């Protein structure tokens, strides 16, 4: 199935917990408006929210860029922040360096990257210590009936 083209860049401010989720919410609304399948819309929204929260919790600032083109939805989250010294460790489920403030709000279970990997069809993470982190996620709209939720069956 083909989706209508749009691209948008959402700025995300580090520490602005009250604003986080706006990008994911806007993206969800736009996808729902063009009748993107609900299951795919939900996966994109969840991954976008995780990406936003990571910037909000760990970085000074960044942005989540969304590009919808044909059958593909691409999200790129870029931040200016401390970077990740050990990628393998950061990707391990349950590992988190979130500060107390984030945990008090219910974040920081160390499942963000795991969830992004589960939601997206492609996941790429690169980071430079002292510079920042970049996460790229690709979602593909497939014509066949989607499973109720992709991966990680419970």
């Amino acid at each position, binding site marked *: 199935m083909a989706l209508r083209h749009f691209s948008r860049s959402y700025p995300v401010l580090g520490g602005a*917990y*009250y604003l*986080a*989720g706006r990008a*994911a*919410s806007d993206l*969800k609304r736009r996808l729902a408006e063009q009748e993107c399948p*609900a299951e795919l819309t*939900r996966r994109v*929204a*969840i991954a976008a*929210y*995780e990406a936003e929260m990571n910037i909000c919790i760990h970085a000074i600032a960044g942005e989540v860029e969304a590009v919808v083109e044909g059958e593909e939805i691409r999200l790129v989250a870029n931040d200016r922040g401390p970077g990740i010294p050990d990628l393998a460790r950061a990707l391990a*489920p*349950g590992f988190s360096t979130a500060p107390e403030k984030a945990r008090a*709000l*219910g*974040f*920081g*279970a*160390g*499942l*963000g990257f*795991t*969830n992004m990997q*589960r939601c997206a069809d492609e996941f790429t993470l690169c980071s430079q210590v002292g510079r920042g982190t970049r996460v790229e996620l690709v979602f593909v709209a497939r014509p066949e009936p989607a499973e*109720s*939720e992709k991966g990680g*069956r*419970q």
Partner: protein
Amino acid sequence: MRLSSVVEALEAEVLVGQEAMEREVPTAGGCDMISDLLFFGKPGMLLLTGLTQPAVVRTAQLMDISAMVLVRGKRPDEAALELAREVGMPILVSPHSLYDCCGRLYARGLPGVIPATGRPGSARST
């Protein structure tokens, strides 16, 4: 289970979504970690939580959650209420604890959102 039956079982007050009481919730889950909710939440579920800030409403909306119950008489802050009205997320408040709310609903046949695996500590990877 219908939301109106949830209200009755939990002796809850409806703060937002009085018009949604006919809505059916297939499953429920109790959770105070937004991160866990983002990982384990399922569309249509009822969320029972002690979290009251706008982020939990935002998360519930993104996860296609049907309604939220705030436990132990907790009141959401005004920003959370406003967001709930804006996105149409029903909010109920029960005077009972999270444990008691879950027990009351479970006893009336509302199943949990994560099926038991029979293996302690296996929830994260299954």
